[in-house]
């Protein structure tokens, strides 16, 4: 597959909403270990609000409009720090995609990288801080290395992110609520890296069909 279309992007959001809802208990369990235990509930609330807006017929004429709507909705409904982070991420995607109906693999990679930079800037996080950045950064590297079709690029991203999320366990948290735990944060996977992996997994899923 050469292009991610508006319809697929819409399916991506729907798929993310369901996979987040399915995995909410798991995400919250991870968050209970090193945070305030609400990541699953927060993300579910956010994406449920997004899907409701879309099914209620919010107008999204292009990828830019779609992602902007997702971003604004997440900002106002997630509640935790992932609200501004994922919200800002999608707003940035929206800005990059203004007026666009499709993205090829290269453009998709560039757009996601820009979103990653927004997360890093906003959260003041670097790789190794035990955050969603630890899942998204290697995923984008993997996309760059993969062949120039959307199906294999997103599959590479999803697999790498899944793996990277697991590898956040031995890291020492330096950002957010988890950083209060210091050494005790070691040994638990980061919930944000996990939700990011789910998001990229959902993307690979719709690009595979």
């Amino acid at each position, binding site marked *: 597959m050469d292009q991610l279309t508006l319809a697929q992007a819409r399916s991506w959001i729907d798929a993310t909403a369901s996979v987040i809802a399915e995995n909410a208990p798991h995400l919250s369990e991870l968050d209970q270990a090193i945070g305030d235990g*609400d990541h699953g509930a*927060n993300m579910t*609330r956010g994406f449920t609000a997004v899907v409701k807006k879309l099914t209620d017929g919010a107008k999204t004429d292009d990828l830019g409009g779609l992602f902007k709507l997702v971003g*604004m909705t997440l*900002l*106002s*409904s*997630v*509640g*935790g*720090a*992932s*609200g*501004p*982070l994922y*919200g*800002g991420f999608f707003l940035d995607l929206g800005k990059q995609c203004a007026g666009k109906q499709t993205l090829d693999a290269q453009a998709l990679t560039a757009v996601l990288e820009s979103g990653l930079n927004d997360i890093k800037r*906003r*959260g003041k996080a670097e790789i190794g801080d035990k955050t969603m950045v630890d899942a998204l950064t290697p995923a984008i590297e993997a996309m760059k290395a993969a062949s120039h079709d959307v199906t294999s690029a997103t599959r590479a991203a999803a697999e790498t992110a899944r793996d990277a999320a697991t590898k956040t366990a031995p890291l020492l948290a330096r950002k*957010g*609520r988890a950083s209060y735990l210091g050494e005790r944060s070691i040994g638990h996977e980061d919930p944000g890296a996990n939700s990011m992996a789910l998001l990229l997994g959902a993307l690979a899923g719709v690009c595979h069909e």
Partner: protein
Amino acid sequence: MIGIVLVSHSKALAVAIRELVLQMVGQDFPVVVAAGVGDDHLEIGTDAVHIAEVLQPFCDGDGAVVLMDLGSAVLSAQTALELLDAEGVADIADKIRLCPAPIVEAAVAAAVQAKAGATLDAVADEARMALAAKEAQLGIEDSAPAIPAPTGGEPARTLDIVIENPHGLHARPAANLVQLVSRFQSDIRLTNLTSGRGPTSARSLTGVGLLQARKGDMVRFSVQGFDEETALQRLRELAATRFGEGEDTIPVARSAETRPDVPPSGGAAGVAASEGIAIGRPLRLAAALTEPADYPPGTPDDERRRLDDALRRVADEIGHSATDGGDAAKIFAAQALMLSDPILVEAAHARIAQGQVSALAAWRAESASVAGSYAAMEDEYLRARAADLRDIAVRVARVLAGETQTTKISPNPPAILLTDELLPSEAMACDPQTVLGVLARAGSPTAHAAIIMRTLGIPMVVGAKSIDPEALAAVSVLAIDGATGEVWADPESVVLSEIERRRGAALAERAAFEKARHDPAVTLDGCGVEVLANVGNAADATAARENGAEGVGLLRTEFLYLTRTEMPTEDQQTQALAAVLANLGPGPVVIRTPDIGADKPLAFMASAEEHNPFLGVRGLRLSFRHPGFFASNLRAILRAGLETDVWIMFPMVTSPEEMSQARDFAETAHRDLEKGGVPHRWPVKLGMMVEVPAAALMAERFARQADFFSIGTNDLTQYILAAERGNGDLESLQDAVHPAVLRAIRAICDRASEACCHLSVCGDAASDPLAAALLIGSGVRSLSVRPNQVAAIKAQIRRVSTVTLRELADKARQCDNSVEVRQLAREVLADRLHQIP
């Protein structure tokens, strides 16, 4: 004015902080909540879009300091600024400051500075310094703000003042000081001469707080500048009012500390705590009450559960008592907090976990230890809380031992109770018929028990350290004077007859005054005036009945809503109203639908920030915007009023169609109840407050829609004279006897009488004998007054004739201001004026 925006994960938290701030700087201060997430922002989290919406008006206005709790609150606030920027809002950087200071301390410090008219940077700086006072208090030095040495020129003028505020220059008086100081150009510094702290700028709340000026400390103001003369004068005036705390503080001048142990002639001495003279046999309170007995412990798990159940049960009972809004409610709310204090509860849990101990024994030991540490505090106010804790501990112990609530304390034959310290729940249990008085070795007039005894009218002397309870219990006659703190044991017959004479005189005075309280109030020329009571809770209802009110001219329902964080259900409203109605005697009861908004915002109902809340969405205006809530209020009134002659009154009615719309709401409420087969009262009279000048000016248009009018003199005065009720600078314009207001009242009386529309006055003016006389002279024949003023107002009415009063009112309307009116009234009424307040 610079505003404050509170960004928090929790709306409840932010609303509570907002309340703290408003308490400090007044209800009109722009402090806005941007907190919570989800529907109505009731879930925990932050919402960047919401924050941006809240911030936007401040970008167009004077700007705001944003205070945030933690984590996503900071991220969301930053994101909100980006959203505003993306929307092209100008001046964001100049108008908005995200401030890293701790949210509670900073909110208070920043608000005071902002209210004083400081710039955005100055407000933000003050907020950042907000931790300094706490650091200094905890002995973490290095935090005192240094101020530069005074510049040259004329030497500063000084003013030395001894702090008389019971709790020192604490936050509220300090805030009043800072606000006053900010009006002057002069350099004003403050030094605590007693402790050597300072000098500090008197413009900084934090600086003033750091001086830790306690009661008895001498402080020095150094004032230098062209307006120093006026500044010194105003400072002197403010200090004379105890920095604005003068009236609403319970006096502790005769505290246990300052009273010598040396007995005066006649007997031992104590501290006056509740007025009145008691003569009778002494009885140890302990003899009337028994300590609950311990029992064999179960497993640690069982005992822990038993303790938690007992704590929950007592907390529920307290929660129940705490809803009636009176003084007692505040006491119980403070006690409820103690029940969930982790230091106490966890210590008791730990003791239980060690095994072999009952929940009762563990609880008793730990609560005694915590109460002991309160009792050892230096601060008298904190020490007084030891009694609260002991009291709540006994309640929990009784539940643990399977006993029910404290039974009535009713000695037979009647007696004066002797105790170490009277606990609040014991005070509540005292039967005023048989408990002649109370003499306690410890306690203070500011303790909750003393407040309750004053309400019950039982004389009490506390802090009588020098007495020996065992010896005293053996005497045959004990006498106490709760107004002077005097105590006599087995007084000689000469002394006893003097005490009896004193008591007789006091009782006769009161009796003459109260004897006629249940008789109708008729003027000298035979004109009857109805005297009703204003009631705000169940205690008022009892007082209204006992003081001879002929009905209730205003039942405020705000108590149902103001203290709640969640909207009460229709059933809850019905029950709370029914409880108040049950305490009332016969006669009509005018129930006003919630007058919310303005100075009485609700925690559970989002309201837009208003520049001028008294001119904003309040009263009926607010009710119309929340039709579901309004309908539940009306249904609750109709249901609760099944057995009562209930009238429904709407506040803040401005145009006639509002009155008819409100009628429609009431009729719908009736139809809905009827459809559901719910018993309720119908028909009822439907009327309105006349407090908006529009309603006063065109009263005849409303008389077609309303069955009755009640004039709210406080608001009518504030709106006619364009002088806000709470503004201390405008006192001369807050008097309802102003000729302009009297003219309006006269006009309303005429229109109401032409339309045969019942008219009453329920504002504060009706409770003031002088103003009441002018109201009657203006044609008013029904007054609704504070419950404890019923007898006094009736007495006033009986001393005058309507002919005199009509002439007086006619002349008063021709005066230029309220001062002239009062002077005129005093001349005309002279000795016929009852107890001028």
